């Protein structure tokens, strides 16, 4: 999903603003234009000319005891437009930021960790030509037929393999994903839903084998955020029948939807782009964070092209409070999707801009 990048950047103290008008930018970032054809595996790699780019994996894991947990790992590449002509190895021409979290119901809240580095071989970087992005010992890599990601943090770690079942799903118009009324606010955006997960998870000092199902987003852009947005809500759900659903809406100051869109892929492999009038988010149950006082809708009714679906979280408290380090507060967590009371899929929900207005 396209909008997450901005608050993630904020999370790392580097809000690489899409809101800044292009005229003030010191370097020329390429525009995102409709009609570009994405090629794989090339477009799975980095696009260093664009201002921001991320690879974002979310999913559900089950260990041998049947314990279910949610996980998330994100790698950002940012071209801040600084020191472009400095030949120094340390010149911050490209930054790599990474973030990982584990949703464990027995803990009742998220474990999370982060990495931020300037791209500097061999410590951190994002390769072109295929997906390969790393920040020290954290990495995400495409090796011909599967992805692999490794994350090491103090209180958790995972080493997971992701096997795709089908070709990438291109969001929007063939990968051109519009984010606001003005088409200049857009990104190139594809998803890899229905990734079969296998690997190991270390938590509380014990390493256990896990399996599961995951979702990968890859998105790059130069100027994405419309002005006047307070935050956004996004979902990416692997449907039990083999299909997938992505939907997002951007909220204005009053909480109303400024823009919405989505992609629905059926079990048969048919992909349908959802327009703004085909996606609606309605809060059902709210939860107030004891830490920040922010109130999040943790259960939603989602209307997709006439179908009414219901979203329920793995646990209520999946708020990530990093005010002490970077100041960002948001909710990002594992959810189940129901239709008529029956679970039809699992995935991730993201809600930003509830604790405070994002500084853009």
């Amino acid at each position, binding site marked *: 999903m396209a909008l997450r990048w901005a608050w993630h950047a904020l999370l790392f103290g*580097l809000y690489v603003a899409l809101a800044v008008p292009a005229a003030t930018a010191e370097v020329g970032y390429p525009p995102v234009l409709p009609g570009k054809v994405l090629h794989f595996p090339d477009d799975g790699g980095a696009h260093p000319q664009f201002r921001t780019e991320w690879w974002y994996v979310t999913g559900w894991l089950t260990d041998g005891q049947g314990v279910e947990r949610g996980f998330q790992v994100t790698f950002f590449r940012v071209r801040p437009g*600084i*020191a472009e002509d400095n030949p*120094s190895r*340390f010149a911050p021409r490209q930054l790599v930021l990474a973030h990982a979290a584990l949703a464990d119901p027995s803990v009742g809240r998220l474990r999370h960790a982060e990495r931020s580095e*300037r791209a500097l*071989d*061999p410590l951190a970087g994002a390769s072109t030509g295929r997906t390969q992005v790393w920040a020290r010992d954290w990495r995400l890599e495409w090796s011909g037929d599967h992805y692999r990601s490794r994350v090491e943090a103090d209180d958790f770690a995972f080493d997971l393999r992701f096997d795709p079942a089908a070709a990438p799903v291109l969001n929007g118009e063939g990968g051109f994903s519009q984010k606001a009324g003005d088409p200049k606010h857009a990104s190139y955006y594809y998803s890899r839903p229905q990734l079969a997960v296998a690997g190991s998870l270390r938590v509380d000092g014990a390493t256990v084998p896990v399996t599961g199902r995951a979702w990968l987003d890859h998105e790059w852009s130069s100027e994405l955020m419309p002005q006047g947005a307070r935050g956004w809500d996004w979902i990416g759900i692997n449907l039990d029948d083999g299909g997938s659903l992505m939907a997002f809406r951007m909220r204005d100051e009053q909480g109303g939807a400024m823009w919405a869109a989505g992609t629905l892929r059926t079990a048969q492999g048919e992909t349908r782009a959802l327009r703004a009038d085909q996606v609606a988010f309605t809060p059902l149950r709210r939860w107030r964070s004891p830490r920040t006082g922010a109130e999040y809708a943790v259960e939603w009714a989602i209307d997709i092209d006439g179908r009414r679906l219901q979203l329920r979280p793995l646990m209520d408290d999946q708020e990530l409070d990093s005010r002490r380090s970077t100041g960002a507060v948001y909710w990002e967590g594992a959810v189940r999707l129901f239709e008529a009371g029956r679970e039809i899929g699992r995935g991730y929900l993201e809600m930003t801009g509830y604790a405070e207005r994002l500084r853009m």
Partner: protein
Amino acid sequence: MSAVLRRIFLASLARRRLATALSLFAIALGVALGLAVQIIHSAALDEFGRGMHLLAGEADLQVIGPREGFDDAEYGRLAIRDEVADASPVLELDVRLPGRDRSLRIFGIDALRVAHVNPALMPLVAEAQRDERDLTVLRPDVLFASPAAQAELGVAPGGRLDVQAGAQVASLRIAGSVPGAGQGRALAVMDIAAAQALFGRLGRITRIDLRLKSGIDIEAARRALAAGLPAGVEVLTPQATEDQSAGLSRAYRVNLTMLAAIALVTGGFLVFSTQFLSVARRRQELAFLRALGLDRRALMRGLLVEGAVVGLAGGLLGIAVGHGVAALAFDVVGGDLGAGYFRGVAPALRFDPQASGAYLLLGVAAGLAGAWLPARDAQRMLPARALKSGDEAHMFRFRARPRIAAGCLGLAFVLCLLPPVGSIPVFGYLAVALILVGAVLVLPMLVRAAAHRWAGSRTVLWQLARARLAAAPGQAVVAGAGVVASVALAVAMAIMVASFRDSVDRWLTAVLPADLYVSAASQGTSGFFAPETLQRIAALPGVSRTMPVRFDTLRLDDRHLPVTLIARPLDGGSRLPLVGATAQVPTDEKPAWVSEAVVDLFAVRPGERLVLPLAGKPVAFRVAGVWRDYARQQGAVAIELDDYRAATGDLVANDVAVFLAEGASFNELAAAVRRLLGESTARIATPGEIRALSLAIFDRTFLVTYVMEAVAVLIGLFGVSTSFAALAIARRKEFGVLRHLGLTRREIGRLITLEGLLTAVAGTALGLVAGTAVALVLIEVVNRQSFHWSMDLHLPGVALLAFALIVIALAAFAARVSGYQAMRDSAVLAVREDW
């Protein structure tokens, strides 16, 4: 002890107020000086250590190379290692600030990494300076100044600061602070890539701070990480780095402590002489007490308590004075006592209970030690005999101990041949002490021998004085030993400092051969001249020759501080102040000239191979000679500039020495250089200016030494006057008899003066000889082992002679004045005491 006894013993101190006061004061001075030195240095060291701790942050290991840095590719190689949890690259620079007479330490850091390893260097963006993208910390044109730097430089966020980058001036925006830097630490932080580009250090870093994963053995990791590093780059624990730096000043600190110890010993000696004479005078009284039933032990205890009370009072006074002196010193000369070891460290005065307690004990010990011999003597006396008059005379009998004296002096000589212990010349100091003891033991023999030689003199007073000194040489020891010791120490210090200053003066002449010095990197800052600038200077009219100088530091191993590398045209070594043997270097080998410190610390000799890590590669040199260097205690290596350039490809220079062409005007050339380089980037100096500055620094370094020296002489003179005062009182019966025999009061005064004069002459003469010997030990052993530099002996003859005469005159005067007191009593009364 009962109240009665307390009155008997302690009241005795009150009766001889002057003598007691002087002993007390001498002990107080010793304690005060020692304690002040201790307080000042421990505060400075603490502060220095805290600074290093702070900058090392949570690093377990630090990868450190030469001052000019090492290949920054090492960072990626090390940071990715399995043992390493976090790594933070640092480019540390001492940057000159144009238009200000100071430099600023700037740390180029990776703001994304630094918080993990050394949070103290984390920049904090000022709210108003935050740009909309919040990338301020990565911007190339901003600087974050610590609170102390902001205060000292008068800049604030939003303001700008000019810095010297190479030979250019760059203006940086102050975008925030470095809150972790703490109080009093003036430093600044900027992005490492920006610092590399701005200050001409592309591809180079000076340090990598490493935090290891938990459970990793630090020493094993240290060895493993060091294995693949370029030559001259070492992996050290922060503790080792700190120890090496602190070790640099250790010899200096020990030196000052030794001077203070001498003051303390002199104080103990004064207690001895006053107690000795007091016991002699109270002999009958003490015998009477014994006869009344006071047992031996109580007597001895009482007399020891007298000394201990003096020591305690002196110690308490010394503690107060010591803290006062330390406070004053912090204000006036700074935490390194002017020696330049802890530049930029601003320690605060704190009461040090441990050191205070230790020095108080030392003061009491000095008092006890001084009282020991007289007390033992009193304990051993036979009351029946001592009750009779004149028994005290046997106390002044002195057995000559030529063997012990010779033994002391011989042992002193042997000790001078021994190496230092942990870079402290322990045996040298012991030799000094033995020479002093030997000289004091020689004194009575000398006096007796001299008294026999004077036999030819005819006047009654001469005869009397001679007879007295020949018969009771103990008196000369008591009165003259203080003179010997203090004169010896003063003379030794005078000769040593004069030799040092003279050698430094001549050394400066040798190392400053040119007419004009242009410096881009004064005081070791990071400025430099590009090759084009060097060519332009060389092409100026009126220039006959230029000698560019390139400075760097080289780590020859991981146990020592880096040595300074000086690369400049050396004309086969003829441009260096060489000492000792030289070696012929084959034409196909590269010559290097090492300073004396390198010879001592790294055990290299002329003719041997010396591998220098240049540009990360080991480069073989042959030691062609040894030169004297008073500027760099940790060692320096000089090589030909061409060899340096060939090995490194580095063509810039930090300084240029310029020789004037025949008939060229100095002022015109200086003006031309100024026009070429700009007013504020380069410093232009004449050899005269540099020399004057260097000698001023020299004098400041020795300021404390001069003060201590004066104190030593002062205490010595105290000794003379207290001894004679007590002697005169002890001898008042003798003087009474002489009055009865027809001597006038005036004549007795002259007799006392004459005795004092003779004792002082003997003591001073011996002091001069002993002092010269001590000076030789100081120059050849103590200095050489402490600071690794040699010097040529230079005797300040006239000054020493004048000093000797003044001491003799003062001693005679002191004897006369104190003797006067004794003659106030009527002759009849004085004699009647005997019956």
